[in-house]
């Protein structure tokens, strides 16, 4: 049994658009998805620009009801499902397809509405709580698409999306499914907007990753879902082969509930381990999609770790957070889609919002998009609790001449 995991479909919805093509075109044109918050009123945080999905996902998801996160996830998963041609597979195979989603807030937006109605109107609308659980987007999506295979939700803060992709790869390698959908989702909520504001890490004028004048992050929302399958399954059903998952690693810094270690020890270790598992060296990496949130501490720590790993010859590095906002549980999955688009287009996105690179950060991220040979990309996600994840993704067959390792003994 091959240990190679192939990406055969992808779907995405974000502030920048509703398809991979749309977001790529917007990125090439230098558009930012950040804009005014209109989804809900926020007395204290309404002035912060956010990456809000334009249009109503409930109109396009195929779900008759559900939270905003349910709709976002179901839409992205349906697009990925069609992209991979899974609508044409026999019902028996379709039932065995599994789903792992990453997410942090589930139906929190509805739960907030519930509490607001209770406090302001004294009205108890229990139905608003039906979608509260973090796992609800996975359940709603699986039910919509008729997926009866392995199902799980990873909730590891801002690294949830990458962790979900990694768990789905584990399921495939363990032989518990032949095809998996995996990705992440989060909607904007009052809880997260006020929460990050209470930590004083939201930028009033939008995030500027790695910039000397950066003042924090910008929140966003969205979902991205990939279809993953073992190589032989994809070949047998003549599926489109978009990219190959090379390796993944996750570490916990065990340092602080919200802050990274100053030297980025955890993300350095995750990147090094992910490359080792992919049978690659740092010199083989053609592009890094950094976590790059725009907060003082994150960018400095991640920059130091990147500098330590790549030394004097770093590959093109960029953060794409100002395009989408930080979509929390969806970020790792959306940025994996960006990496696949970079592989397909042989172009590397720039770091929108970066005007004056911070001299204290020992890397030089790209300011604007460039053409480049991109066979492999490294995608980083960091989260609260010291979560550090790194994923290697490459063109299909990128490791054929190298020593791609199966991490099963």
């Amino acid at each position, binding site marked *: 049994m091959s240990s190679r995991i192939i990406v055969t479909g992808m779907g995405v919805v974000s502030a920048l658009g509703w398809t991979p093509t749309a977001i790529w075109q917007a990125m090439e044109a230098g558009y930012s998805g950040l804009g005014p918050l209109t989804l809900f009123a926020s007395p204290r945080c309404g002035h912060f620009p956010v990456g809000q999905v334009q249009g109503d996902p409930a109109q396009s998801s195929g779900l008759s009801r559900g939270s905003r996160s349910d709709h976002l996830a179901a839409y992205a998963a349906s697009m990925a499902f069609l992209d991979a041609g899974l609508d044409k597979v026999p019902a028996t195979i379709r039932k065995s397809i599994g789903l792992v989603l990453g997410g942090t807030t589930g139906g929190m937006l509805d739960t907030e509405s519930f509490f607001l109605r209770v406090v302001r109107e004294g009205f108890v609308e229990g139905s608003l709580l039906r979608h509260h659980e973090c796992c609800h987007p996975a359940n709603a999506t699986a039910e919509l698409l008729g997926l009866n295979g392995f199902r799980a939700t990873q909730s590891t803060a801002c690294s949830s999306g990458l962790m979900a992709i990694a768990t789905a790869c584990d399921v495939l390698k363990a032989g518990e499914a032949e095809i998996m959908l995996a990705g992440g989702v989060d909607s904007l909520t009052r809880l997260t907007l006020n929460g990050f504001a209470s930590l004083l890490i939201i930028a009033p004028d939008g995030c500027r990753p790695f910039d000397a004048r950066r003042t924090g992050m910008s929140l966003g929302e969205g979902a991205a879902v990939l279809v993953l399958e073992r190589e032989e399954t994809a070949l047998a059903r003549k599926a489109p082969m978009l990219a190959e998952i090379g390796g993944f690693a996750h570490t*916990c810094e065990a340092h602080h509930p919200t802050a990274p270690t100053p030297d980025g020890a955890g993300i350095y270790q995750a990147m090094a381990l992910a490359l080792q598992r992919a049978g690659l060296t740092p010199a083989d990496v053609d592009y890094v999609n950094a976590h790059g949130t725009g907060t003082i501490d994150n960018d400095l720590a991640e920059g130091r770790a990147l500098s330590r790993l790549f030394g004097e010859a770093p590959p093109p590095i960029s953060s794409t957070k100002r395009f989408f906002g930080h979509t929390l549980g969806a970020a790792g999955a959306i940025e994996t889609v960006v990496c696949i688009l970079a592989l397909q287009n042989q172009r590397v996105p720039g770091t929108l919002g970066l005007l004056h690179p911070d001299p204290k950060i020992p890397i030089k991220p790209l300011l604007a998009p460039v053409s480049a040979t991109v066979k492999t990309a490294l995608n980083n996600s960091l989260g609260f609790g010291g979560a550090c994840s790194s994923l290697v993704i490459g063109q299909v067959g990128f490791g054929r001449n190298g020593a791609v390792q199966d991490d099963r003994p």
Partner: protein
Amino acid sequence: MTDPDRDALAILGCGSIRPDRNLELLPLPAEMGGGAVYAHLCPQSLGKGVIPSGVYRKVGRAQKMVLLAAHKALEEFPLSPSAQDQSAVCLGTGFGELGETLLFLENLVRLEEREPKPTRFANSVHNSLASQVAINFGLKGENHTLTQGPISFELALWQAAVLLQTGRAGHVLVCGVDELTPFLGFLGVECGFWGKEDPPDLQEIERTGHNHRPRPGEGAAAFVLGLRGAAPAKGLLPCVHTIKVQPLELRQGQIIDPMAELKFVMDALADKGVSLGNLDLIILGANCSGQLETLYQPILQLIFQDIRKEIGVISYKTLWGEFSTTPALGLGLAVDILRTGKIPPWVIPEKKPPPVLKNILMYQVSPLGFHSLCLVRI
């Protein structure tokens, strides 16, 4: 010859924070209609003197529960500093640190977003539980938080098996934790999981040791796991030999097929060369609700037809209540039973246990659309 059980998960350390088996009244929020539910609750002052005071002040109730459970498990099997670097945490939870999340949310709603507390926000993410464990015990390996309703803990156990069997961790601390808040009590009433102010039949509980109605509960358990092949002691070491976690093939309105469930159980056991006749005890996720009873009874009947011997059946939810990760307490009970060879006197199984207890089946099927099992052996 290679030990066929070398890939089994040895339970090297175990700690449980069990709620009181006696029911207490939990008042529900007045604004949501008030009233109360009878519930199994953990003590209010958890972990004082064990959890460092600086941490104690900043963490929520669920975090305290899991820190205390982890403390007990790691007391049984301490990890050296070098082992800590290679040790992962896999945690299952249904609702995360719900108490802190709701306090943050209530504050936003009532005070029009003035004075939000940053510590509460940091605690509100589901993985604040697993990361607090990692921070407090220096565990720097992979850190997973899995949340999927009633199978959250089993998924954490499954993920731990992957990490150990692929060499991605030397040891894994597997945890399950959920706290009961008044909000959750209300939510359970709304969803019809339990009734308001539904008084317990104390005589029945006294006689059987168990609840005979679904009651909400809370608690935490933690287990230090390593591969059996690498475990220092191989004698009386309870091991998890197989874990299966799957959604049920159900469409709206369909009921669970007992024959399909029997096949699910038999196939999983057969993978490990075990037949139903080898089982000595079954620990179930039944909670005595009419809905669940009608699921479990026909499945048990089919199992007993095949076993052709008297074995005990224990329902952990009738001891400690209904919450997403009660199965973690069930596994803790299985460990206690296998280590001592006895069923504790306060657990009264419906049938007499055999003189030797070696193979315990943990099994649950949920109308929420999942089933899971694991085989625990010594």
